[in-house]
């Protein structure tokens, strides 16, 4: 029995596959590689593997993490070398290391994530990056509607406390936002809410489908 953490990037058209599609893809890659995954017990056994955080459909990811267990000790470098050539286009394995012994899963340790959001601008905006920051973050509260975990109803929330840091760069016709957001089990903020509130606050006519989101990295509690 051994436990590993795989780091990979997901870029290009493959970002249009879902988190469950990726699970299935990895399961099959392990099988093709002849790496025996450990399975859960019970009526419907499934391989022990989880992503630190699911990546939303359409997002790119540069530092995505997959934690998994194997029946045998295969060696982290070896796993990386075997898996790398088997990955579909757009998935690049950048690292594999043995997981430190810990009771908590990677998913449970995830606290925050950093995103880069590219918002195309149809018209030039007469604001500097710091103007934009002041206008958006200067709001006392950033109110929007969010689906409640249990009830599934929409409720008004203030997302401002969940924004850890935000910075803006305007480059030609695109507004780049670096957003460092809560992203864990206790407090979680989807970049989607930042996008909608930002577009609204700045009065942009950009559609959601024009916006690109990339998750750069995740941050974990010790």
């Amino acid at each position, binding site marked *: 029995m051994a436990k590993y953490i795989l780091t990979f990037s997901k870029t*290009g*058209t*493959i970002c*249009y*596959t*879902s988190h469950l*599609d990726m699970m*299935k*893809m990895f*399961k*099959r*890659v*392990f*099988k*093709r590689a002849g790496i025996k995954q450990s399975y859960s017990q019970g009526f419907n056994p499934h391989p022990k593997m989880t992503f630190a955080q699911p990546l939303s*459909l*359409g997002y790119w990811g540069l530092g995505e993490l997959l934690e998994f267990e194997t029946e045998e000790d295969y060696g982290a470098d070896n796993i990386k070398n075997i898996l790398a050539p*088997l990955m*579909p*286009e*757009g998935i690049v394995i950048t690292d594999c290391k043995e997981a430190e012994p810990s009771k908590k899963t990677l998913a449970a340790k995830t606290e925050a994530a950093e995103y880069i959001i590219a918002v195309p601008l149809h018209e030039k905006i007469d604001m500097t990056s710091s103007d934009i920051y002041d206008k958006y973050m200067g709001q006392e509260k950033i109110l929007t509607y969010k689906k409640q975990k249990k009830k599934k109803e929409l409720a008004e929330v203030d997302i401002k406390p969940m924004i850890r840091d935000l910075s803006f760069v305007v480059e030609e016709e695109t507004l780049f936002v670096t957003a460092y957001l809560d992203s864990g089990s206790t407090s979680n903020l989807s970049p989607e809410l930042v996008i909608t509130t930002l577009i609204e606050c700045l009065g942009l006519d950009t*559609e*959601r*489908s*024009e916006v*690109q989101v990339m998750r750069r990295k995740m941050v974990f509690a010790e």
Partner: protein
Amino acid sequence: MRIDKELDNMLKKVEKPARYIGGEVNSIKKDPEKVSVRMGFAFPDTYEIGMSYMGLQILYNILNKNDDIYCERVFAPAMDMEELMRECGRELFTLETFTPVKELDILGFTLQYELSYTNVLNMLQLGNIPLKSCDRGEEHPVIIAGGPCAYNPEPLADFIDVFLIGDGEELLEQVCIAKKDTSSKEEFLKKISAYNGVYVPSFYDVEYNEDGTVKAYNKVWDGAPDRVKRAVISDLDKAEFPVNNIVPFIDTVHDRSVVETFRGCTRGCRFCQAGMIYRPVRERKKETVRRLAEEQIKNTGHDELSLLSLSTSDHSCFEPMALDLMKMCKEQNVALSLPSLRLDSFSFKVLDEIQGYRKSGLTFAPEAGSQRLRDIINKNITEEDIYGAVEQAIGLGWETIKLYFMAGLPGETYEDLDGIGKIAKNIIDINFRVRGRKGGRFRVTASVSNFVPKAHTPFQWAAQDTPEQFIDKHNYLTKQLHIKGVTFNYHETKTSVLEAVFARGDRRVGKALEKAHQLGCKFDGWTEHYNDELWQQVFAETNTDIAFYNYRERSYDEILPWDIIDPLVTREFLMRENEKAKAAQTTADCRQGCAGCGINKHTECFKGAELPEVKHG
């Protein structure tokens, strides 16, 4: 793969964008500049359905093994995607390189069901390719079509340049190569029409009698064959079969490893087109099947394996093959699925082991409710067979039995329909007898489809029931099958009418297809998309006489629109079988003696099978 902003925006708006991105494990990347022929393999339905079709994987593999050909995939976009494509002026593209289909050398459609024909036209239009062959020039790709429906190509004759009839394994590659070796469309069509299996409709002019039947097929070019013989692969064991199947990212109808164990069927059911057009039986050796299965599993990472044939247990080495595969699958943690088993004691042993506690339903297809009608259609299964098997199944813990029947078969009476109710009732009673008065959660599902006469079958001359007759029968059956524990489903009547028009239509029904396409009909096989009002309008405006195509019995003298295709099974055999049907006489499985269908004049029957020699008459 990087794509442009516009397409990227579209993908962000549609449902299941992964349908349109390609890039799956084992999909093929080639430099289009480095090949001589670019071919698009088009499936006229959504990605999920098309990717579950084994023929696509077989041909994709063969063509792409040839360094001079690049075969890419094309599917029908779902409604939401189509809308965006039309809005932005984005033309239909291939999944591998996002190339507009218009730029390919050949675009080939597979015709698996008649109700996908409007999608063929819609895809041409989305590709910005003129629908009709006569409106296309050298700058457009050659449009070809194959698959079982191509055995009556006529409804699509105005739109398709070339039909490929029969086994495609060798033929399609030859046709692609011929494209490279010729410099004009005409030269190409003339060259390939010398190959078995190639039908070029524009080489023939159809003349009609006053009563609307076909008078003659007149050749426009003397070099065209009198009849187009279907292409046959003689040795299936040696035929190419893929081991590097494309593995979809998203869930498809079937997402598993599949090995075809044999082609053809010897049972001779008289309604069944597959049973006629895939003759003779040709087997893959069990060692080959195992090797292919192992390699596929290794290259795909699938955790399910299924066998493909018209009747799994009819393989001459089925038992040892099944045991061997079961062992292999167990070792590799792969689920084995064996469809369409004949339910004898061996099958039960196998099913009991591979399905374990999670027993899915057991399926029987008596097709007709009485022995007399089963004799008419030559369906060789007795009620005793069914009851015996059901009793065993219940004993082993199965809780769902699925029964398949047809309504509207030639010679059918209401007494035959009573038989359907009787069989369902008897099965319920067997369950009570075996499991006691409570009977458990036992369920019987009886599904009734509507008989659609198909070209190149003994029933190709038969009349189809009218919608009124079907509806009366469905209502009658609803009453008969009002039995506790029995679920009754029947097939939509309107689409069976449509299917029948195109299954036996001539060239003139092409007008109706074109009209339907103009009015926006597409995905006709999908209940939620089928629009009956539009189709009624289509038939009215194009003066299509449904009664002429569907409800009349044809005489043996009549020239049938699909007679231009020679399925290598003789017309005399089909006539003989039809006459025997009228007398309710059966014809034995031709393993027990050749029934004289004529195919043995062209190729070897039972090639690869380990059978005692069958004597041809």
